[in-house]
C-alpha cells in the first residue's frame, strides 16, 4: 500500500486543498456578490481577471507568483519587511498560489447562485422587516446553498490536481510542499510505475467522488431555486 512518503504527500495535498477552499469561500463570497450585483463598468475586466486561471498555463501563473514571492518581489519584500518567512518554497506560498489558481472554480458558481436568485426574495424579506444581515443569513445563504456546495467541492477538487503552479513556487520539499501530483511525477521519472499507479488511482477516485457529490447536490437542490 501507500508508504509513509506517499501518505505524507497525500496529507499535504488534503491540507492544502482544505485550507485554500476555506480561504476561497471567505474571499470569494463578497467578490461574487459584488460581481452578481454591480452595474460598474469595471465588471467585465474583473470577470476576465477572475476567469484568467481557467485559460492560463499554470506555469505562467506560477512564474509570476514566483517573481512576486521572491525576495525582490512585492509579496516577498512585504514578508521580509514584517519579519516573516519568505513565501516561495513554503506551504503558505502554496496556499496563495492555490487560491489564485482555483479562484474561478469558487467565484463563478457563487456568482451564478447570487444572480440567479435576483433581487425579488431580498426585497420581499426587507418588506417583512429583515435587515441587511438578517436577509443574508435567512434568505441569501439558504438560496445559494447549492452554489456553495458546488463552489466548495470544485475548489477543493481543482486544488487537489494542482501541478504546474506547485512545481514553480513550491518545489518538491517532502513534508512541506510535496503534493500528490508532484509525487506522481517523481515516481514516473524514476520508473516506479506501481507507486505512480497507486497515487493516480487515489486521486482519480477522490476527484470522481467529489464531482459525484456536486452533481448529486445540484440535482437535489435544483427545485429550491427561485
Amino acid at each position, binding site marked *: 500500500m501507500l508508504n509513509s512518503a506517499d501518505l505524507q504527500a497525500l496529507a499535504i495535498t488534503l491540507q492544502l486543498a482544505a485550507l485554500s477552499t476555506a480561504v476561497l469561500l471567505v474571499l470569494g463570497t463578497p467578490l461574487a456578490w459584488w460581481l452578481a450585483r454591480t452595474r460598474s463598468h469595471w465588471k467585465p475586466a474583473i470577470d476576465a481577471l477572475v476567469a484568467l486561471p481557467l485559460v492560463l498555463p499554470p506555469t505562467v501563473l506560477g512564474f509570476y507568483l514566483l517573481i512576486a514571492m521572491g525576495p525582490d518581489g512585492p509579496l516577498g519584500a512585504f514578508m521580509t519587511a514584517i519579519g516573516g518567512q519568505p513565501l516561495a518554497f513554503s506551504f503558505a506560498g502554496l496556499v496563495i498560489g492555490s487560491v489564485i489558481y482555483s479562484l474561478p472554480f469558487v467565484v463563478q458558481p457563487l456568482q451564478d447562485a447570487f444572480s440567479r436568485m435576483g433581487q425579488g426574495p431580498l426585497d420581499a424579506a426587507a418588506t417583512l422587516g429583515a435587515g441587511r444581515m438578517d436577509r443574508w443569513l435567512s434568505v441569501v445563504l439558504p*438560496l445559494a446553498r447549492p452554489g456553495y456546495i458546488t463552489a466548495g467541492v470544485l475548489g477543493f477538487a481543482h486544488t487537489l490536481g494542482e501541478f504546474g503552479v506547485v512545481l514553480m513556487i513550491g518545489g518538491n520539499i517532502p513534508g512541506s510542499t510535496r503534493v500528490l501530483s508532484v509525487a506522481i511525477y517523481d515516481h514516473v521519472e524514476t520508473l516506479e510505475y506501481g507507486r505512480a499507479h497507486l497515487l493516480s488511482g487515489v486521486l482519480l477516485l477522490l476527484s470522481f467522488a467529489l464531482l459525484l457529490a456536486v452533481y448529486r447536490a445540484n440535482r437535489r437542490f435544483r427545485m429550491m431555486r427561485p
Partner: protein
Amino acid sequence: MSTDNRSGLHVDLQLTRGPFNLQAKFSAAAAGVTAIFGPSGAGKSSLLQAIAGLLPAQGSIRIGNHSWQDEQQYLPAHRRPVGYVFQDGRLFPHLNVRGNLEYGMRRRHNTAVPTDYDFAHAVALLRLGELLERMPHQLSGGEQQRVAIGRALLSKPALLLMDEPLASLDAGHKRELLGYLQNLQHKSALPVLYVSHAPDEVARLADHLVLLDKGRKLADGPVNDMLTRLDLPLSLDSDAAAVLSVTYTDYDSAFDLSRVALGSNTLYLPGRLSAAPGDTLRLRVLARDISLTIERQTGTSILNIVPVRIVELREQNPAQCIVRLDTGNGMLLACVTRKSATALQLDSGQQVYAQIKSMALPG
C-alpha cells in the same frame, strides 16, 4: 373620503429613473382600499416600491404620526411597517408555507398592538390550513398569492401594498382571490394601496382611486366620482361603468330574483345573492347597459327603471355620447347614440329615466 392631517397616509414623492419621471402627491384614509390605477408604464409599481423604500425617491411619506421619509430622514425598507404583496408572490422557495408565514410574524413590524392577525386567524381567513407543510413550488398561483397575503398580514403592517396581486392568475383563481380580498377588506382596519389596471377589480375593491398616467397623478377621489367623471379617461372607455352602493332586501324565489334597494328604488338582480338582508353590496353598471327615456316606460320588459337627473353630457366619439346621471344615491353613466341625444334633446339638469338592462356584482 376626507383625511385630516394626523390620520391616514400622505404621500408626496418624486422619482427619476433614466427618462422616466414620477411625481405623485396624494392622501389616503386610515382605512379602506385606495386603488392606484393607470395604464402599464404609468409608474404604478414604481410608486409602490418607492413607498416601501425599495426604490429610493425624493419627497415625504407620512402615515398617522409617523414619518417614513422627509427632509431629515429616510427609513430603510425593513424599518417601514408595510406588508407588500408582489405580483409574482415571491414566496421564499426554501421555506414551506408555515416557514413563509412565520418569517413575517417573527420579524413583525409592530409588537405592541393587540394581534388581530395572529397565525390561526390568518390561516382561517385565507384557508391555508391544508397548505402549511407544502413547499411553494407545490402550490398553484392562487394558493401562492393567498400565502403571500397571509405572510404580509402576519408581519403586522401599518399599510398593505398590493401590486397587481391578481395579474398572474387565471379567471377562476382571480375570482376566488377577489373574494378573499373583499373579505379581508371587511375585517381589517388596515389602509390598502392596490395597484391595478383592471377596472373590474377597482370597481369591486376600491373606495378611493388615484389615477396615474405617464408618472403624473391625473386625479384622485372617491371611486365612483373617478369612474364617472367625464373629464377623466375612465368614462371614455368602451367598458365605462359606475359603481352603485345598494342594500340587499330579499330574494324572490318565485322568479329567482334578488331585490336590492337604491334609495327608494327597488332593483332586481337575477339569481340568489350570498348576502343577508341589510348588507351593503356594490353593483357595477356598464354605461352601455343603460338607456334613457324621457317618460317612465310602461309595457316594457325592463325591470329596473330609475329616475335620474342629467348632470353632464359629453361626446365620446362622433357616434356616441356619454351621459353622467345623478340617481340621488350615486352617479351612473349612460352611453347613448348622438342621434338619440339630439332627438331627445338631452341636456344637463333634465329629469329622465334610466333603464338598466343588466347589472352584476363586479368581479
